[in-house]
């Protein structure tokens, strides 16, 4: 029994965090999110160069030849940085593609997304192809204003069959992203509680402030455990993977929303402004919570498994 990432995987995490904090600091992400394009297309070549796009693609198909555990580290870190770009959308699709398509995607030449409901497609405007339940279609449709401007939806011109078979991998990836969101929002709250002074003292000495932050830590760690478990199940092709990924997505998304809400409250007025990055995390957390069904939908699935 060994429930930890390897030293190499932790090294990948350090590299990712260092790259993202340098290239995608909060101010830049805010600027991109508020821009018309919503992202920096040049960044896709950088991600390809780093080998991140082909992290789970075999070396024969031009990938890095690693697995879903390494991909998991990247989902978490890119979520933590709120990277605006179709990393999630493309990587969820990759294992379903043929070797040539995989090679094109890993090199950054083509970008992919998918639809879980036959209509809504994450990142539609900035990808080339969309995987459906029975093949793939060109990424054509209307771009929709989306609460989370770093991951905008589009609606396909022609309804398509839902790509149900991507649900498990998508849910595992989103659970991991949600953990990254929770961790970052928790850090914002801790930092503010330590430095903001009222009545001559840092507000973190008040238990009305510190106890909700402790609850956010508990929520983050519990969802981290579920998300890593889901990652392991996907990596091992474990038969429990669909159930575990659904459970992890439900718990981690709900936690991320709650952690962001507590962080906003701890910040007071500044937490409610457009200027502060927290609202962007809060919106991504809600995006994750909603995608593929709110947590009650996944819990209904768990209940069917338990009770019949």
């Amino acid at each position, binding site marked *: *029994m060994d429930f930890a990432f390897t030293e190499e995987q932790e090294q990948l995490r350090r590299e990712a965090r260092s790259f993202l904090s340098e290239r995608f600091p909060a101010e830049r992400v805010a600027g991109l999110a508020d821009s018309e394009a919503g992202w920096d297309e040049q960044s896709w070549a950088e991600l390809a160069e780093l080998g991140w796009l082909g992290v789970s693609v075999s070396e024969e198909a031009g990938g890095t030849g690693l697995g879903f555990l390494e991909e998991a580290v990247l989902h978490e870190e890119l979520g933590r940085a709120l990277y605006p770009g179709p990393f999630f959308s493309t990587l969820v699709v990759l294992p379903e593609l043929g070797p040539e398509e995989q090679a094109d995607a890993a090199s950054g030449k083509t970008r992919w997304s998918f639809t879980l409901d036959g209509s809504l497609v994450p990142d539609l405007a900035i990808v080339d192809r969309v995987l459906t339940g029975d093949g793939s279609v060109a990424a054509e449709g209307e771009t929709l204003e989306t609460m989370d401007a770093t991951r905008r939806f589009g609606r396909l011109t022609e309804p398509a069959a839902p790509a149900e078979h991507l649900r498990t991998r998508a849910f595992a990836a989103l659970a991991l992203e949600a953990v990254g969101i929770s961790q970052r929002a928790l850090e914002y709250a801790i930092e503010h509680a330590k430095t903001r002074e009222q009545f001559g003292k840092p507000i973190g000495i008040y238990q009305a402030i*510190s106890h909700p932050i402790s*609850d956010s*830590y508990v929520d983050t760690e519990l969802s981290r455990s*579920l998300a890593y478990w889901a990652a392991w199940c996907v990596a091992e092709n474990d038969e429990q993977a669909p159930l575990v990924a659904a459970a992890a997505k439900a718990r981690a998304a709900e936690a991320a929303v709650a952690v962001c809400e507590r962080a906003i409250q701890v910040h007071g007025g500044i937490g409610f402004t457009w200027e502060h990055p927290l609202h962007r995390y809060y919106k991504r957390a809600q995006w994750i919570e909603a995608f593929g069904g709110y947590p009650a939908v996944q*819990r209904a699935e*768990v209940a069917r498994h*338990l009770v*019949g």
Partner: protein
Amino acid sequence: MDLRDNPEEAAFRTEARAWLEANLPEDLKATRGGAARFEELGREWSRKLSDAGYAGLTWPKEFGGGGAPYTHQAILLEEMARAEAPQHIGVIGLGMAGPTIIAHGTDEQKSRYLAKILSAEEIWCQGFSEPGAGSDLAAVRTSAREEDDHFVVNGQKVWSSFAHIADWCILVTRSDPASEKHKGLTYLLVDMHSSGVEVRPLRQITGEAEFNEIFFTDVKVPRENVLAEVGQGWQVAMTTLLHERGTLGFALTGALEVAIKKLVALARERGVTDPVIRDRLAREWIDLQALRLTNYRALTQLVKTGIPGPEGSVAKLHWSEANQRLGKLALELIGPDSQVTDGNGYWQYLQLRSRGNTIEAGTSEILRNIIAERVLGLPRSR
């Protein structure tokens, strides 16, 4: 990362499972959490566990332990939960007094006490809390006055589980009457059969008396029963509390797993269709898995570094609240009949008993302080 047992762990699991199957008496299975019946049978069961080498699994071999890795302890607790086997009756000796004596005791103390903890020949209780010193443990007032070759102890302790059947007590006393707070405390090993020790059971919310008040009136405690040095009581007490919470996660999660399995079985049997109840049941199952996997992460950290990770502090806090939600859910699932306690009253007992979970072994408020201050680095609130 590999969540499967390695071959050596798998072998230990198989062996433990087979042993439990062969040795656990049917009437000892946890049909009800109450303590009274268990006291009669508990010592015998504990001796069996000890003879088979399952008591003190991670204690060093030189003190009669198994010298086994922490993973074995975790596997044993999982298998005991799976078999619904009660724990060794000497939980305070095994989990708290023993490790503290191993850490701070003299060779004489180790050879005098440790073997009898393992064999359940001697039961221990804990004398920490007082009427005026609950969460604020440093406020203890029970006095230990040095006289010739012994201490004279006077005072009152409270919330002491097993004291009514205990042979020994780990006792935190104030040996320097002029001292305040963490200074001037001394940790004593007190014979509960000494003259001047009086135990009064406290009847609790469930109607049972699992814990007690202990009154000490001019109790003579020989000087050789001081653990570590006079005046070092606070540091020694912290070792005890580290162990209290450190090894707890798997046992707590195991108990919760048994209860959730029973509740799922009940829901199946009744063919529950109410979507609200089904949603809450799924939520509790998911949180149980989250706790279980968090224990695994903490265990991996402990095995790799020898230091418990911060994940451990999450376990008790979250478990206690999960257990409370579970108790309420079970009664709601049963419906109005839940108020009738005919039969074994398993769920009614669990629901009422669970109110103590957020109070005992560190209140949830204290645990949130610990997380805020020691894990997250927030400023101290007092």
